[in-house]
Each structure stands twice: as structure tokens, then as C-alpha cells.
């Protein structure tokens, strides 16, 4: 990948962040937080996208962003009110902006031109009121943006547009503060940008510079005076300083007798740019350009250099017209220092650490087998090594951990679109966006969440009329929440709609032959029928949720992640889908157990207690199915080796160990094993990838002695497998 392409990739990555920020800020506007800072943040996000897009010649994106930005400019100047209609339009515009970015990336073939054009018309209508928008030519002139040539040679100024003449030139005096540099901006780049507007004369004033011992590296003390010999529009100048206006002292005065320059910056809100705006594509481009333009700097003696012509203008003392810089808001926290790392590198590291864990376990096993005393130096050293390995593993996993925000932030758009299509009023409430989970899990969450949200809006929520008739507000609420619980991440999608119509669900299930007509089912079992393959309650397949993907597919994709899905519903009040997923797909704390000479791993988070069955506590329901008394309750006792097909005959429960487990749904059962061998952290190896999916088995791992052990899928064993009789053709081992 050449330098330009690499920067383009970075640009699109940053676009993702900008879009997320844009969405978040628009949501704030929607919630009534229409303060200047929020409006400014929206403006900056759109402006940043536009600026970067211009550098790459993405014209359609630039044009759309420009119209969007123009309206934001009207809002931030207070010339237009930030009312509900405007905010709704902005939200839809952000969706189309995202489409333009995706199209520019090649992720979608093209933008829906009709929709884009309609949005442009709406934005322009809001910007210009009832008046017709300026002609296209004017708009081009007004862009204030010029596509930057990749080669940023100073002697190739891009011809400036020809706006209405207001001044024949400008004097720009600016003094960068230290934080301008800290925000990754550079004077040199600003001067280059000014140089693009026309011929400039630059004078550096270092009179305020103290001697070295008194100089603070964090403070700026140089002042530049730039005389621009071009009759450019003031807006073009403002654009150059757009990202640094609060990080430098700036004064702009017209040269050559212009008359109408009244406080050009007074309308400009002095805002503190958040760190996310520090992404300086121009800087990146300049850097790349430098690398391309002069890969080997030529070394020449200083004396041979032709001296710069003497500055034409002495250091002036202009009357500042511009606003003084404004101190940073106390609420702006310093951004954490981050680096971007190729995901492959992180994955390689994780794999290697996984191997390290296995090797360490093998080494421990060898030491154990060698008969060395536990107090020996080697054994103690190994224990330290184990702790360190664990720490390395935790640290590496933390690198991959990401907040679910990246998925949640895509949902408001989905909700808007689906709500529009089905003519329902929907409010999306998100909770716990900062909950962190492994990146792989985050990525694979998007699809099931999307489907369930669609489902909630399409099937769960009533129409506004129905809601009002039911004594509810016309607007339905869908809540999307993420939280950590017992070492897993739980995602809840709930709505305040009609709830599951159990009669209807049961009837459909009977009609489709999924259950017997006289099957005695609990409410929970009826609710869970919607996850049955082939089940669809929609009488007419809609564009929204009936896309050929049933809830059974959602369930399978969640199960493939080692997760569970459950539903609870109250008629007339709404439904809640609960997804529970492991925080990581790489490691697991497990209990090592033996069952008919097979070594198995029971995931530790599912285990409640272990006990030795006493004959007095055992009972057989119907003389066949064993149950065990556990804290004044009877739990089903499941002979794991038997139902997994490891042996033909049930073992005597009193010869084994019972491990009480709890499913995601809160159901408890006792699993019967031959013995417990220990507890350890295991590296998860996918069984599907390396072999095939096996019922009752979530994954596999490699033990310290090099053998493969199966990791049990406790929920499936307790809920599904126990119900079924053992299929004669299903044998994992003979």
C-alpha cells in the first residue's frame, strides 16, 4: 500500500469515528441539548469529513458535506433556529453522509441519488428559508475548500476562487499557543494553506522569545505576520484557521482600503476542539508528500543558500479585529494517548499468548509428573510464571476489548428508518454503551442486535393509534442496554409494546407442526417457540424483519459466539430479549472433570457448587430420571457421559461427583461426572472451525498433557439434551 492509500485508509477510519461522534451529538440535539458547543461539534465533524474528502477528490461526498455544513454554520451563528424539524433533517442527513462515505470506500455500490438529492434540497431549504438557494456556481465559489494537490509544493498555489471583491489583500497576524502544537497542528501547514490562497509575505517575530533557561517548551512565543496579496473571500481565510482558532491569537485586517470588514470573527464561537478533531489529514498528507517529494534531503552548505529576500513588511502592530482566544473549557478532559495498530498484529500476539498459556500448562504438568516437591524452586518459579502468564493474557485481552458503543451507535439510524417504514413513533434509549467486550464479539453483535431491533419495532411495538387506544403514549420506546454480569456481557433489547401474543404463537407452532396440539407448555416455553427454526409470526413477510432471517438464525449466531438468548414477555407491557455472551472468545476459566475416561471442561461461571451425591438425597422420577436434593430443592441429575454417548449405561451417582450448574435462564441442574480433576484457565479452540459443531459442546481446548478436552455447553446440556432421548446415531466416543 503506498503512502497515499495508507492515508486514505486512515481517513476512512477517522470518518467512522467522526460519524459516531456526529450521531452522538445529533442525538443530544434531539434530546434538547441545543447548546452552541453541541452544534459546533456537529459542524466540526461534518467539516472534518469534508476537508479530508476534498483532499482525496471525493466530490460527491464533499458536495453533500458542504450543504450539510452550510446549514450547521447557519445554526451555530444563530441565524437559523435549531428546531425539531431541522434536527430530524440533520439526523437523516447524517445517514446519507454515512452512505456517501461508504460509497467512497466502495463498501456500497452507490448512494441512493434520489434520497441524497432530496436531502440536499431539504438542507438548502432550511439554510435559505423560503428563498431559492444560490446558483450552483456561487456555491462552488463559496466552498471555501479547495482540493489539495497531493504534492504540496509551495510554488504551486491553487488558483483562488473569485468571490466578490471586498479587499485587495489581508494581513493575518497570529501567535500559536503551545496547545496548538499539542493538538498536532503546525504553523508551517497553516502558512502553506494561506500560500494556496495567493502570494504571501511571511515575517516571523521572535521578539517575545526569552532566553533558553526561561523558555517554556509548552508555551508559544512566536508571532507570524502574513500579508496575503489576494482578494479572497474572508471565509477562505477563516477556513484555514478553523481548527486552531481557539489555540492561537489571531487578528485579520484587510489591506488596500477595503471597508466592510467588521469583526469577522465575532460571530465565530470560540470553541475548544476535542482531541478527535486533531486528526489532521492535511498534516498526514503533507508528511506523506514530504516523503514522496524529497525522500533524500539534499545537503548543501548554508552559505550557498540564496538568502531570503528581506521581508517587505516590518513586524506590524495591527489593530486586532479578531477575537482573543478563549481559555479551554474545564469540562474538556485531555484525550488519552492512543495508537492505531493493525488488528492482525494484535491477533498474532493473542495467538502466541494462547500458545504460551498451553505451553506453561504443559510445563506445569511435566513438573508435577516428575515428582518434584511443591516447595521446590522449580515449582515455585512455575507458579510465578503462571501468574505472569495470566497477567500477560489479561493485558493482551484488554487490548482487544472495545466498548459496544461502536455497534450501538449504528442503531439510531436503523430505528429511524424502520420506524419511518412502518409509520411508528419510536424512541431508542441506549444504556451502557461503554461496556467493553472483545472486538470479535463486538463485531458479531451488530447483526443479531439489528435483527432484534427491527423485530421489536415491526412486531413488538403497536401503531400510534393502537398505543393511544391501549392508554400508552403514541411514541414507543425501545431500550438497548449492555452490562457485565458474572464474567459475561449481557445485551438486553426491550420494548414497551404489546408483548408476545402467546395464543397466536402457540397456534402457529401447532399449525407448522413444531409442537403437538396438546403439548402442555409454560408461558416461557411458548415465548421461546419464536426461536424455533422456520417459525415466523408475520402474516405477511415485511421489508423490515421478514428478510428470510428468522429468530432461529439469530439464536444460532449467538450460540456460535458461545452465547445464549432468552426472552421474557408480559402481554400488553412489552418484551425483553436478553443476550448473554462471553467477554472473550479466547480464554475461559474452567473446571476440569472426567466422564467415562474423557476429560471435559465445565465453564466456571456456570458452576454454583459441587457435591458428592449421597444415596439418601437421590430420587428417581417415574423410577427413571434421577433428581438430587440440593438445599431443600430437587434438581435433575444429568449423567453427562451417558447423554454425550461416552457410555451406554448410567453410572451409580454415589460413585461420582455432582456439579450444580445454572443456565443463563436461571435454571439449575446437577451434572454428574466421574471426578473433578482441577480448575484452570484454558485457551478456547473452535470446534466448528477445526471439526464441526457438536451438540452439547461449546468448544475445545488443549490440556497440559497435550490432549484435547471438550468444553461443555452447559445450557444446551441442561435445557435441550436432557429433554431429548439420546439419539442412537449421536456418539462422540465409543
Amino acid at each position, binding site marked *: 500500500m503506498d503512502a497515499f492509500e495508507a492515508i486514505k485508509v486512515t481517513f476512512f477510519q477517522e470518518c467512522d469515528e467522526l460519524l459516531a461522534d456526529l450521531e452522538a451529538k445529533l442525538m443530544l440535539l434531539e434530546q434538547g441539548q441545543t447548546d452552541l458547543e453541541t452544534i459546533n461539534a456537529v459542524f466540526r465533524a461534518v467539516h472534518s469529513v469534508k476537508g479530508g474528502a476534498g483532499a482525496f477528490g471525493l466530490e460527491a461526498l464533499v458536495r453533500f458535506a458542504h450543504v450539510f455544513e452550510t446549514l450547521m454554520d447557519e445554526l451555530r451563528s444563530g441565524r437559523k433556529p435549531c428546531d425539531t424539524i431541522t434536527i430530524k433533517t440533520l439526523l437523516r442527513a447524517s445517514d446519507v453522509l454515512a452512505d456517501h462515505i461508504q460509497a467512497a470506500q466502495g463498501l456500497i455500490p452507490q448512494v441512493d441519488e434520489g434520497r441524497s438529492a432530496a436531502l440536499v434540497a431539504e438542507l438548502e431549504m432550511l439554510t435559505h428559508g423560503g428563498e431559492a438557494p444560490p446558483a450552483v456556481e456561487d456555491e462552488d465559489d463559496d466552498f471555501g475548500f479547495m482540493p489539495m494537490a497531493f504534492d504540496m509544493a509551495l510554488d504551486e498555489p491553487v488558483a483562488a476562487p473569485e468571490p466578490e471583491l471586498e479587499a485587495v489583500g489581508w494581513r493575518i497576524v497570529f501567535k500559536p499557543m503551545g496547545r496548538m*502544537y499539542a493538538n498536532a497542528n503546525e504553523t508551517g501547514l497553516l*502558512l502553506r494553506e494561506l500560500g494556496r490562497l495567493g502570494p504571501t509575505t511571511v515575517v*516571523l517575530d521572535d521578539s517575545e522569545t*526569552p532566553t533558553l533557561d526561561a523558555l517554556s517548551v509548552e508555551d508559544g512565543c512566536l508571532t507570524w505576520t502574513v500579508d496575503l496579496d489576494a482578494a479572497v473571500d474572508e471565509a477562505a481565510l477563516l477556513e484555514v484557521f478553523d481548527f486552531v482558532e481557539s489555540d492561537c491569537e489571531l487578528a485579520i485586517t484587510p489591506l488596500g482600503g477595503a471597508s466592510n470588514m467588521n469583526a469577522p470573527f465575532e460571530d465565530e464561537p470560540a470553541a475548544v476542539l476535542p482531541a478527535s478533531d486533531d486528526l489532521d489529514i492535511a498534516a498526514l498528507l503533507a508528511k506523506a508528500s*514530504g516523503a514522496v517529494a524529497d525522500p533524500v534531503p539534499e545537503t548543501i552548505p548554508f552559505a550557498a543558500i540564496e538568502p531570503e529576500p528581506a521581508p517587505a513588511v516590518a513586524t506590524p502592530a495591527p489593530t486586532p479585529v479578531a477575537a482573543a482566544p478563549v481559555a479551554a473549557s474545564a469540562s474538556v478532559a485531555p484525550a488519552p494517548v492512543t495508537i492505531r495498530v493493525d488488528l492482525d498484529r494484535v491477533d498474532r500476539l493473542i495467538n502466541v499468548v494462547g500458545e504460551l498459556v498451553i505451553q506453561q500448562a504443559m510445563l506445569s504438568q511435566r513438573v508435577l509428573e516428575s515428582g518434584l516437591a511443591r516447595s521446590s524452586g522449580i515449582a515455585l518459579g512455575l507458579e510465578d510464571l503462571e501468574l505472569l502468564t495470566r497477567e500477560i493474557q489479561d493485558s493482551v485481552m484488554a487490548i482487544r476489548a472495545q466498548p459496544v458503543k461502536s455497534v450501538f451507535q449504528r442503531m439510531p439510524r436503523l430505528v429511524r428508518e424502520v420506524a419511518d417504514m412502518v409509520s411508528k413513533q419510536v424512541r431508542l434509549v441506549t444504556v451502557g454503551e461503554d461496556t467493553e467486550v472483545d472486538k470479535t464479539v463486538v463485531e458479531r453483535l451488530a447483526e443479531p442486535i439489528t435483527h432484534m431491533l427491527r423485530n421489536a419495532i415491526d412486531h413488538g411495538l403497536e401503531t400510534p393509534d393502537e398505543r393511544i387506544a391501549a392508554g400508552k403514549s403514541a411514541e414507543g420506546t425501545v431500550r438497548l442496554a449492555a452490562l457485565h454480569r458474572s464474567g459475561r456481557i449481557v445485551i438486553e433489547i426491550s420494548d414497551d409494546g404489546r408483548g408476545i401474543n402467546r395464543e397466536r404463537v402457540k397456534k402457529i407452532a401447532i399449525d407448522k407442526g413444531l409442537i403437538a396440539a396438546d403439548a402442555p407448555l409454560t408461558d416461557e416455553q411458548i415465548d421461546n417457540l419464536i426461536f424455533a427454526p422456520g417459525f415466523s409470526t408475520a402474516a405477511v413477510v415485511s421489508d423490515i424483519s421478514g428478510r428470510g432471517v428468522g429468530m432461529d438464525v439469530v439464536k444460532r449466531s449467538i450460540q456460535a459466539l458461545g452465547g445464549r438468548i432468552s426472552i421474557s414477555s408480559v402481554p400488553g407491557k412489552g418484551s425483553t430479549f436478553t443476550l448473554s455472551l462471553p467477554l472473550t472468545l479466547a480464554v475461559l476459566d474452567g473446571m476440569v472433570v472426567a466422564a467415562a475416561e474423557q476429560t471435559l471442561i465445565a465453564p466456571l461461571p456456570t458452576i454454583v457448587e459441587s457435591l458428592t451425591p449421597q444415596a439418601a438425597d437421590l430420587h428417581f422420577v417415574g423410577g427413571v430420571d434421577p433428581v438430587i436434593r440440593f438445599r431443600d430443592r430437587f434438581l435433575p441429575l444429568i449423567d453427562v457421559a451417558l447423554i454425550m454417548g461416552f457410555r451406554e449405561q448410567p453410572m451409580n451417582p454415589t460413585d461420582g461427583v455432582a456439579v450444580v450448574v445454572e443456565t443463563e435462564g436461571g435454571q439449575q441442574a446437577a451434572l454428574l461426572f466421574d471426578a473433578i480433576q482441577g480448575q484452570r484457565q484454558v485457551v478456547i479452540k473452535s470446534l466448528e472451525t477445526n471439526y464441526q459443531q457438536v451438540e452439547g459442546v461449546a468448544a475445545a481446548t488443549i490440556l497440559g498433557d497435550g490432549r484435547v478436552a471438550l468444553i461443555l455447553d452447559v445450557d444446551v446440556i441442561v435445557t435441550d439434551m436432557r429433554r431429548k432421548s439420546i439419539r442412537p446415531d449421536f456418539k462422540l466416543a465409543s
Partner: protein
Amino acid sequence: MSETLILAEVLDLNAAQPLKAELLALRGHALTLDASAVERLGGLCLQILMSARKTWAADGVNLSLGSVSQYWTEQWAALGAPDFNNEGALA
């Protein structure tokens, strides 16, 4: 005898503090700056160099610029900076 300080390739935000420290360590010595390897020059390092220029002049010690890279020449001019050697000559 004049000491020579070879300036780093990249004189950006991160290079500012080390540059200041290096210069301070050489304060009082006649010094020649070798800018032949410089490929980036930012505002913070520029102000340190301007400050050094002022400091050496105030100390009455010679500070001059030796070899420079093509980039240095262009960037120095683009930043509108005065001839580096002049103030040293005044001392």
C-alpha cells in the same frame, strides 16, 4: 573550539524538550548547528532555536548554522524566519 550539534531528522513536538536540553547542556560553548539531516521542522523547535540564538548572543558566544538540508532551507524561508547566523554575528 566550536562544538557541533547535529540536529535530529524530525524536529516536531516530541523533539522540542530534548532539543532544549541538548542546547542548554552546550550553553557557553561556541556552537555550530548541523541541520543537514533535518526533514521536519515544527514551530516549537523553531522557537527553541530562536531562543538559543538569542541566548548565545546574550552570552556573547558564537552560534552558527553549518550544513543544512534542502528541506531546512525551504521550511526556514516558508516560516519567514530571519537569517539564523545574523544574531550570532552581532554578539
